[in-house]
């Protein structure tokens, strides 16, 4: 970036600014048409056609419409791939194409995602059928860049419209360089340069057009490996005052931030809404005057396009035609905004020295990740310039979430302090937040150093909060081996503010972690984060992207707060244009340059985290809110412990009919395993409508595809023998999975809204592959099983299921809408923990949240499914989500003991109070800590108390704990506890005071394997109290 030139500064500061905006909307021509020859099956990608009319040969990804009449798209659309008579190849679609269906190819590439295909052998093909080639992911294609679209008027004297072009491409492959260029300027005449000349900003190719029209042109860059990449752009040539130049405009604000630009336009025209179709490319351009001089001053990153104000696409559903006023109103958004609506499939990329598939990339970096998504999973790189300027860390794995393309990118690049957004002219930038870069890495060339003449009215310095918003940054980064690197900044916390956790940021080493922790601290405590500067006029050279500093000069006497800044470095974070005919006023919101002192090395655990040991999470069999139990015995058990209790362990399944509360007699326990092939119980639950008549267990959780390992689901009816209702092989067959893979049934759950409903999650993996989860369900108590499709819920590297539950819709007032299903998995080997959510009873799934890695982050998710409230514990504390996991709000900072727990392997809970009538929901939360104690908060997590303060009911010592605690639905203080301590002490305990004191209900010391029936050293699989 270079500063605004001296001549332009003079113009900006000393002349009267005037601007007249115009709008052009791209109307792509039909360049190829045909009709289907014979009925084509649904989704056919190779289509027999006849009657081909080829005006111009389409390029790959051009828009192809299917219609019942010529030119129509009432039957859908796809992307043109290729044509070789008589076969037209198109991208995936779901349209049945009858004989003689019309196919129309438009001269346009729309912003679209491109989906991969995965065959039965897990072989990935890009764009549906493009197999991986030998060097695609080593000799990466370059990024062709040639500036934004052009708008030019035909000169009234010469009759010519003149446009300048130059390229700014970059090679991506290691060691490669751009070697040649090829322009196509359809309809244009080259005046200077040639179709193979690169051009520079100072010596561009000069091309003229003599006829008005929309010219779809292209530029192809070829690198030294012979790899090519093509950018398409439109040259809008217009006669002045032509009907398709809309200058009678009302602009309801043009606003840009670090995500995208958006504008609301009201066009005075008789053209009607059809002239402004959804997703149409729009270019807002300007004629500018600075005094008597007609000239445009734009951003120096787009020389020769200074007249372009904004490039965007019409947002679907926003176009409104006012017949009375002959006006059309609609919204446009930049391409990064459009990317929010382009869905990408979940997947993962990994580094490999010699890639053998699309998912392996040589020298995987965050920039290469973005390059892969932009060039392989979307059309974005072909319709706008893309700049990949992220920090250059390498990484072993990166996940593609089941989310929009924009989310996929933003979620990943956040780890390198990255951000993604557009310039006003539509170029896409992925770069580090400049405020989170070390000072010596930040851009230092000021776009402008302000004078008093530049600024209009008083600078609004915003509202400063307390002196420090953040007392200390508790930083947990990751190094190249995905090992945690902890830092604290400042070393001694500020007196004010709150502590903030920063997780998952990539660092090189401890030294860099300390530095970055300091940068975060400085950034978060920036007192001048929203300074509003109104400029004297048309300063649209200022933009959010790329990050370029400005130097602000303000005298104390020039603002009521008496703040004086001298060449204060600031960063533009938002831009707003206020337009009325003839006048364009620019306002920017800037943030003062921030930096914090380098932090100190953080607190590492005294003991290394234990290896993840899978133990099924305590079953949550009772719906604790108005349970639809049909067998209520008539006696008032409310407020009492239920007399009938099952305890499932890996040493057996035990039952008592005389369970009592504190002070009651010791229950008598008996085994209830008749019909089971093993006493190793992995999971237990019951149908909520008839819990004593329909109980379910999963036996033997260990690698159980082999039948002899007994990984099966059993049902017990009315106290009879257990009967197998399903095993791994059944589900593998049902789901159409490879029988050569391994699998295990990892989770089951019932649904409070549907009697007889039982869902199961199958974890399936093949050698060398990752774990993939599949969903199956039964509506007849497990007698028969069904699938929604073979599409997996998702994958998690070395993942295991940690939570699975049916919930309700938020705000639902009845049980009738139990459509929400949650699945949480944790990864044991360097992957990430994930939350998936389905809102249609498991038919489709969304990967909603990716947590930090297993050994340094989240290990627990508590589902308060009755309220659709989720809790998780991570290294940054306890968080809560009220919106199905879309966002997480910290409710408690890390408690040291709980923090240790967050790094332990399994068996810990955060237990919300279920009954909101007793206390406001989530005010009372319990957590089980590393020392086996119960931690409780009664104020939403602000303060925590550890119970018991002396004596540990489950045994003390040891380095891990597995606990199951169930809060009953009355006052919330009745709790069952199952414990396993490091000294192999297992107990069934009860508490009636919220976990402060406990009483054993299965023998004083369960290490006595004969006392009351439950053997010692049992792994706890669940506790199931029911009305009998």
């Amino acid at each position, binding site marked *: 970036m270079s500063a605004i030139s001296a001549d332009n500064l003079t113009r900006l500061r000393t002349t*009267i*600014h*005037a601007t*007249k905006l115009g709008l052009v909307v791209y109307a792509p021509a039909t360049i190829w048409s045909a009709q289907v020859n014979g009925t084509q099956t649904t989704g056919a990608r190779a289509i027999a056609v006849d009657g081909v009319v080829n005006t111009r040969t389409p390029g790959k990804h051009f828009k192809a419409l299917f219609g019942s009449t010529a030119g129509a798209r009432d039957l859908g659309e796809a992307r043109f791939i290729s044509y070789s008579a008589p076969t037209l190849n198109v991208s995936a679609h779901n349209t049945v194409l009858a004989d003689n269906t019309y196919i129309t190819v438009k001269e346009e590439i729309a912003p679209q995602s491109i989906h991969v295909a995965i065959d039965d052998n897990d072989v990935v093909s890009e764009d549906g059928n493009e197999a991986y080639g030998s060097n695609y992911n080593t000799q990466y294609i370059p990024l062709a860049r040639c500036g934004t679209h052009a708008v030019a008027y035909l000169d009234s004297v010469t009759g010519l419209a003149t446009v300048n072009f130059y390229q700014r491409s970059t090679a991506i492959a290691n060691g490669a360089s751009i070697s040649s260029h090829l322009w196509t300027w359809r309809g244009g005449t080259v005046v200077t340069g040639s179709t193979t000349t690169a051009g520079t900003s100072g010596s561009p190719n000069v091309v003229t057009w003599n006829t008005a029209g929309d010219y779809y042109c292209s530029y192809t860059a070829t690198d030294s490996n012979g790899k090519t990449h093509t950018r398409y752009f439109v040259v809008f040539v217009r006669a002045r*005052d032509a009907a398709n130049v809309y200058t009678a405009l009302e602009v309801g604000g043009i606003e840009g931030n670090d995500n995208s630009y958006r504008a609301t336009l009201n066009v005075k025209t008789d053209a009607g809404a059809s002239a402004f179709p959804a997703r149409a490319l729009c270019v807002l351009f300007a*004629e500018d*005057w600075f005094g*008597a001089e*007609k000239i445009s001053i734009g951003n120096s990153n787009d020389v020769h396009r200074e007249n372009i104000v904004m490039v965007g696409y019409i947002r679907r559903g926003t176009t409104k035609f006012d017949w009375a006023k002959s006006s059309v109103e609609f919204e446009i958004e930049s391409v990064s905004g459009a990317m929010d609506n382009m869905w990408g499939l979940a997947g993962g990329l990994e580094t490999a020295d010699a890639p053998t598939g699309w998912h392996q990339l040589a020298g995987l970096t965050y920039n290469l990740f973005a390059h892969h998504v932009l060039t392989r999973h979307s059309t974005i790189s072909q319709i706008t310039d893309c700049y990949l300027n992220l920090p250059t860390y390498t990484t072993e794995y990166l996940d593609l979430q089941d989310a929009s393309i924009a989310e996929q990118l933003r979620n990943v690049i956040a780890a390198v302090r990255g951000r993604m957004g557009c310039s006003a002219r539509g170029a896409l930038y992925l770069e580090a937040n400049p405020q989170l870069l070390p000072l010596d890495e930040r851009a230092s060339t000021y776009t402008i150093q302000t004078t*008093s*003449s*530049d*600024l*209009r*009215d*008083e600078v609004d310095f915003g509202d400063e909060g307390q002196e420090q918003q953040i007392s200390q940054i508790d930083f947990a980064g990751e190094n190249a081996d995905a090992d945690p690197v902890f830092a604290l900044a400042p070393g001694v916390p500020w007196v004010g503010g709150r502590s903030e956790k920063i997780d998952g940021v990539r660092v090189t080493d401890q030294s860099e972690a300390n530095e970055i922790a300091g940068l975060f601290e400085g950034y978060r405590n920036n007192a001048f984060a929203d300074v509003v500067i*109104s400029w*004297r*006029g048309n300063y649209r050279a200022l933009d959010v992207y790329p990050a370029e500093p400005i130097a602000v000069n*303000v*005298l104390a006497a*020039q603002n009521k707060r008496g703040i004086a800044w001298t060449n204060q470095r600031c960063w533009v974070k938002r831009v707003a244009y206020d337009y009325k*005919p*003839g*006048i364009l*006023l620019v306002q920017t919101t800037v943030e003062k340059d921030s930096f914090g002192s380098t932090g100190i090395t953080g607190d590492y655990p005294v003991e290394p985290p234990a290896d993840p040991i899978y133990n099924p999470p305590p079953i949550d069999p009772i719906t604790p809110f108005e349970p639809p139990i049909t067998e209520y015995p008539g006696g008032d058990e409310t407020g009492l412990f239920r007399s009938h209790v099952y305890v499932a362990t890996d040493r057996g399944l035990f039952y008592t009919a005389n369970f009592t509360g504190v002070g009651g007699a010791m229950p008598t326990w008996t085994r209830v395993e008749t019909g089971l092939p093993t006493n190793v119980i992995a999971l237990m639950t019951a149908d909520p409508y008839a819990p004593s008549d329909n109980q379910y267990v999963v036996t033997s959780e260990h690698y159980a595809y082999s039948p002899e390992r007994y990984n099966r689901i059993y049902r017990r009816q009315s106290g009879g023998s257990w009967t197998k209702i399903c095993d791994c092989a059944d589900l593998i067959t049902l789901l159409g999975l490879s029988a050569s893979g391994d699998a295990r049934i990892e989770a089951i759950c019932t649904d409070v809204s549907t009697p007889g409903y039982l869902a199961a999650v199958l974890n399936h993996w093949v050698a060398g592959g990752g774990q993939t989860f599949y969903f199956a369900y039964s509506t007849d108590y497990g007698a028969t099983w069904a699938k929604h499709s073979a599409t997996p819920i998702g994958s998690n590297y070395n993942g295991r299921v940690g939570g699975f539950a049916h919930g309700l819709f938020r705000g639902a007032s009845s049980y009738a809408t139990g459509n929400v299903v949650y699945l949480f998995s944790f990864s044991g080997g360097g992957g990430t923990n994930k939350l998936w959510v389905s809102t249609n009873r498991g038919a489709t799934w969304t990967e909603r949240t990716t947590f930090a890695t297993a050994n340094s982050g989240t290990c627990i998710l508590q589902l308060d499914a009755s309220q659709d409230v989720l809790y998780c514990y991570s290294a940054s504390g306890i968080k809560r989500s009220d919106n199905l996991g879309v966002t997480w709000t910290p409710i408690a900072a890390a408690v040291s003991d709980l923090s240790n727990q967050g790094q332990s392997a399994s068996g810990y809970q955060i237990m919300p109070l279920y009954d909101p009538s007793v206390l406001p929901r989530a005010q009372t939360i319990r957590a089980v800590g590393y020392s086996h104690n119960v931690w409780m908060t009664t104020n939403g997590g602000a303060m925590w108390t550890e119970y018991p303060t002396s004596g540990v009911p489950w045994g003390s010592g040891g380095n891990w704990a597995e606990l199951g605690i169930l809060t009953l639905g009355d006052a919330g203080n009745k709790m069952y506890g199952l414990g396993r301590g490091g000294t192999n002490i297992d107990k069934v305990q009860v508490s009636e005071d919220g976990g402060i004191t406990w009483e054993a209900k299965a023998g004083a010391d369960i290490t006595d394997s004969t006392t009351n029936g439950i053997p010692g050293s049992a792994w706890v699989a669940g506790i199931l109290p029911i009305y009998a």
Partner: protein
Amino acid sequence: MGNYYIGASVATLFPVTGLTSDGADPHPSQFVEYAEVVGTDLNGAPIEAGLPRCTWNWSEMDAAGFDALTDYFTTNAGIVYIQTRTNVYASDAYTFATYKARMARPRGETVPGKRYSGVTIEFTMMELQS
């Protein structure tokens, strides 16, 4: 014949006196180099912004001339080209320049005798023509 011209294009400019039977130029006219003041800079100086505007004035005009100006406004949908006086003074005279402009509907007070007094036409969004 004066120096004030009007037309549907630069090539078709003609003296505005051709529309007014009295044959009088719109004198005195006012020319302002900007559209409005949008604020002050940090030195307290007003910030002028927007395209120039001007006003043509006739102290009195007969109804036929007023109607002709109104018809011209209607016919051209308010978009015209004009040659008008600027504030640039050179060689002992104000200079004239040609602009594309938005023409407002003529205004005036009717007076007895089928005449109008205080006739004005405002032109805004004036784009200088080279």
